[in-house]
């Protein structure tokens, strides 16, 4: 298994690309298994694993203060595609996008995603992602659908997620809401990373986000 192979925990969300808009979104942890992954178009499991491995390999060896773009290799579909990633404490969030997406826009999207996670899980930590994979997927589904960016306004996303959770609770009554992992784990430590504040108003300033409207 890949985890043994790289001795690293990968968390990979990759969303289905509009045929290839957002090819794959991958978030993985520096050491450990893949936490989340979503792939957009159909590939064999082996190819997917290979992509994850390679991506991890590429991304993890990059220094902290280098640019967040990696030009596409053959595996991710050639030169039209780029890997765009952000590194949060122990986690990498990687999107693979083609040239129709704005690079800086995607960086902001990752930021929106992480902050949405933060809101939905109240101070998100890595274990949240492990224990609530489905929820993370649901959140991602509100942002990126079939590989295309659906919504970038965090408030809107959170509203929809809350409404769905309410619906779920009303259906389930007692059964739902698994206990949150309270254990003392490293926080993802959001305030540490808001590097792209200087990108301007499209970027998200932590902690107060201007809306995208």
């Amino acid at each position: 298994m890949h985890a043994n192979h790289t001795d690293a925990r990968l968390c990979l969300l990759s969303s289905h690309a509009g045929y290839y808009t957002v090819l794959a979104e991958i978030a993985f942890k520096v050491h450990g298994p893949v936490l989340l992954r979503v792939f957009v178009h159909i590939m064999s499991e082996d190819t997917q694993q290979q992509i994850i491995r390679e991506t991890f390999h590429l991304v993890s060896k990059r220094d902290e203060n280098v640019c967040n773009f990696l030009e596409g290799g053959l595996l991710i579909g050639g030169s039209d595609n780029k890997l765009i990633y952000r590194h949060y404490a122990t986690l990498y969030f990687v999107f693979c996008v083609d040239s129709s997406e704005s690079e800086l826009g995607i960086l902001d999207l990752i930021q929106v995603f992480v902050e949405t996670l933060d809101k939905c899980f109240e101070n998100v930590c890595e274990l949240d992602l492990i224990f609530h994979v489905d929820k993370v997927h649901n959140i991602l589904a509100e942002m990126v659908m079939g590989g295309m960016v659906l919504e970038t306004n965090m408030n809107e996303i959170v509203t929809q997620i809350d409404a769905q959770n309410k619906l779920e609770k009303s259906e389930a009554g007692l059964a739902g809401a698994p206990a949150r992992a309270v254990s003392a784990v490293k926080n993802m430590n959001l305030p540490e990373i808001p590097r792209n504040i200087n990108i301007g108003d499209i970027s998200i300033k932590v902690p107060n986000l201007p809306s995208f409207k």
Partner: protein
Amino acid sequence: VRTTRYIVIAKERAKYISQCIDEIKQELKQDNIAVKANAVCKLTYLQMLGYDISWAAFNIIEVMSASKFTFKRIGYLAASQCFHEGTDVIMLTTNQIRKDLSSPNQYDTGVALTGLSCFVTPDLARDLANDIMTLMSHTKPYIRKKAVLIMYKVFLKYPESLRPAFPRLKEKLEDPDPGVQSAAVNVICELARRNPKNYLSLAPLFFKLMTSSTNNWVLIKIIKLFGALTPLEPRLGKKLIEPLTNLIHSTSAMSLLYECVNTVIAVLISLSSGMPNHSASIQLCVQKLRILIEDSDQNLKYLGLLAMSKILKTHPKSVQSHKDLILQCLDDKDESIRLRALDLLYGMVSKKNLMEIVKKLMIHVDKAEGTTYRDELLTKIIDICSQSNYQYITNFEWYISILVELTRLEGTRHGHLIAAQMLDVAIRVKAIRKFAVSQMAMLLDNAHLIASNTQRNGICEVLYAAAWICGEFSEHLEEANQTLEAMLRPKVTTLPGHIQAVYVQNMVKLYASILQQKERSGEKEGAQEITQLMIERLPQFVQSADLEVQERASCVLQLIKYIQKLQIKEVPVAEEVIALFAGELNPVAPKAQKKVPVPEGLDLDAWINEPPSDSESEDEKPKTIFHDEEQRHSRHRQPEIDEEELARRREARKQEQANNPFYIKSSPSPQKRYQDTPGVEHIPVVQIDLSVPLKVPGMPMSDQYVKLEEERRHKQKLEKDKKKKKQKKEKRGKHHRHNSLHTESEEDIAPAHHVDIITEEMPENALPSDEDDKDPNDPYKALDIDLDKPLADSEKLPVQRHRNVETLKSPDSEAPLVEKKSKKPKKKEKKHKEKEREKGKKKEKEKKVVEEEEEKKKSSKHKKKKHKKEKDEKSKDKKKSKKKSHHSEEETTESVQNGTLDDEPLPPMSSYRLLAENPYIKMTYDIQGNLQNDSQVTVSVIFENKSTSFLKSMELNVLDSLNTKMLRPEGSSVHDGIPVPFQLPPGISNEAQFVFTLQSIVMAQKLKGTLSFIVKNDEGSTHEKLDFKLHFSCASYLITTPCYSDAFAKLLESGDLHMSSIKVDGISISFQHLLAKICFHHHFSVVERVDSCASMYSRSIQGHHVCLLVKKGENSVSIDGKCNDSTLLSNLLDEMKETLSKC
């Protein structure tokens, strides 16, 4: 997920997981949906870890169809993760998804859409396209935006849906909800990116959005789209510059700024000429990019460089002034940035800064860690210097020195590149040969350094070049003896075989020239000494394991032994030996071979010679290098060599060169070469300006050249200044080094040598360059669909028909598609033809629009308002021009029904006729025969909600006649109506289809019917009714069937057809138009057309053949018809008469 969390902790993972899977399998077998859902949830997690869960696909579907949202969501999530086109159970989901899509709970719908977006297949897309399209007008923006976005996926899988859905998609661009708007922009941009030309007509709309929208995401998308559109329509670019520049000035969002700059660049590229304030915009872009590059954020730096390289292609000068910045980036610690900067440098060099840039690069080469980056640098240096035929090199000595310096790089993979450059320069730049040879001799002398250090790496390849150059141009060699000795060192035998082979070959050349030299000066002893040396040292090559080296060496050895004999007899041999290598080489363009046109009458596949026989004459030309050599050398042993023989050998030598591995890549077929190669005397003579002393002792240092070059330029400049004192010139101080960057213009630099670079040869009548074809497998090609063309009737989304249709039409579940499918191939062809025809027209139209807009801009400040008005008017005009007003969605239809018609543009026609109308609803209908069933026709009715209320519970009923009956679901009585399978929100229209059975089709029929429906608005709901009369014309029983003229003739000959004819007067429309009308409204196809006379054919659903002969007179048309049934024929002709009399 509680169980799965342990996975993280568990050490014996595999064992644990197989346990888990067993457990899950157990859980899946239970009836409790909650347990199942939980199991599926675990599976999703396992899938993410890389386990195959496709075996559970059916269970996933079960969970998907749970009634509770909680479970449904789990099911859809699992499906979106593991379903794909190959999943066979996916077709079972169609109805479930359809149900979820129309669920009253918006999140059910949402979750279904999200899931579908991941696993949509062509079948699903086809079946659900219509449902999704309805959702695009849903009241909730949450659903609307998802529905809009998923349409892109649907288009990809089912391209036929694009045209019918496009009008609504376009509407959504102006949706009040920003999310929906952004989704629509997203989809259209994605579509337009692949096939921009089809979306040019949307430019004004996008322009409006761009100037009004404040959503940066939307703006970025639109601006990116414009970037794709401008290359197709330069006028658009002109309009864009201003608002984009404003945005660049005003925005604080870097991402938006960056995209604006990018698009401005695209515009400028497309405008490359004739734009007055061009340079201002470029300056602005470059300035902004500079800010980006100077930013401390690596991302911005990277993007800035990326955009800069785009400007560079068209406006190199404006980028060149930022050279300092780019060179700085080379020092960046981020490799991606360094590589980008290198790319930029490639385009930035000029004659004046080449040396400087390369010098900097050389420093980087020395500093670079890691071979990949260093190799990249090396290739870049060579690329930069050799680009456009060494355009920027003013001093080739410098270049050779650079190349020699590069050979000192350890561990590079690019030895062959350097070697190729050395050879190329030495061959093509005549003036440099002397210098090159001296350098190469030095390399050979120091071969041990190169070979020993890096034998495994490719650098020893340069020895190949060095040996060849020294051999070929040995006349320039000053210390040939020394070089020869260097080549004969024992160490050489450790080199790779192909290099040794070149060594051996070139040794002989060297030897020949030394011999000549010695003989001329009468040093007989010296000549014999050198021969002796050869004979002593050559055996080491004869023993080589490499076949080629061995072969060559033994030949050479024999040759030289023979020469020795002659020498002992004191026969002068040098001239003859040197004659072996007479002749001059010409470089040949790499593409030359491809470009040689095949002469007339030459069959390349035919045998050139008869298959070889034993009686080959001795004079036959050698075919391989080995043959060639052996023959050449053995022949030489014969003492008498006449002129003819020599000439022949020369030719043989040329042939050999043509076969030499180095030449092979560039040489055309050998025979061709002889004809086309101009003689030596055609090669331009080079004058060497020897103002600069050439002698540089030891290994050359390129830096020296830089210095020399500067001095030289300075001198040149001073001279020029003297000469042209009157001419206005910028002052160049003594510190020319500083201002040389800015003041010196390209032309001022005269090259150090008047170097004539011999151009590579091309065959005389070379064919124009070959074009690359586009990838035929491009998945987006299917979406290359003309969207401006009016919709045709057949172009509608498949609608869910009521049960009867499906059960009765054909056993196949695909039944509703069958008729369409049968039409499709024909359609496509037609589309193709039409496209071509319309292309021209369209372009004109677009240009006009842009021009008009520009005019408006000038004349009025309220351009937007006016523009809109005019647009409205236009569309009104359009509507008026249509014969009948139709339903908005299916407004117009394709004009021609038959591919054989062409030339003239035809007015739009629609086969949809008005059925009934009241203030709430409008119904239009069309009847089509069903080929599969000879007693059925399908009536498609479009219901359009004209009111502001919600229409529901629509039910359609008709009073059956004896002959014609509506097909009702089993078990219902003849008086029951059929519910319309949808509801209509305000302003929405949809289509339903009803099947009717008929006994006889020879006569037209009329059926009375009623539509009942409930109108629901804020004040409450009321029950309403609308009566109508359904008219089944005889034409509606006909099915357009193509017929070949011979089959048609046979049919007429058979003689069992009844005949009838009509004549209509006062026809003013063209014949073309008339035929189109008959084709379209009466379902005929043209068999043949001669001038104003045409034969036409059609077939009824019950198999009647109908043949027509249509003739146009001055003002009248006569139609003769033949048909199996006389009643049908006369009815048909009557209907036709009516149609035509309306013309």
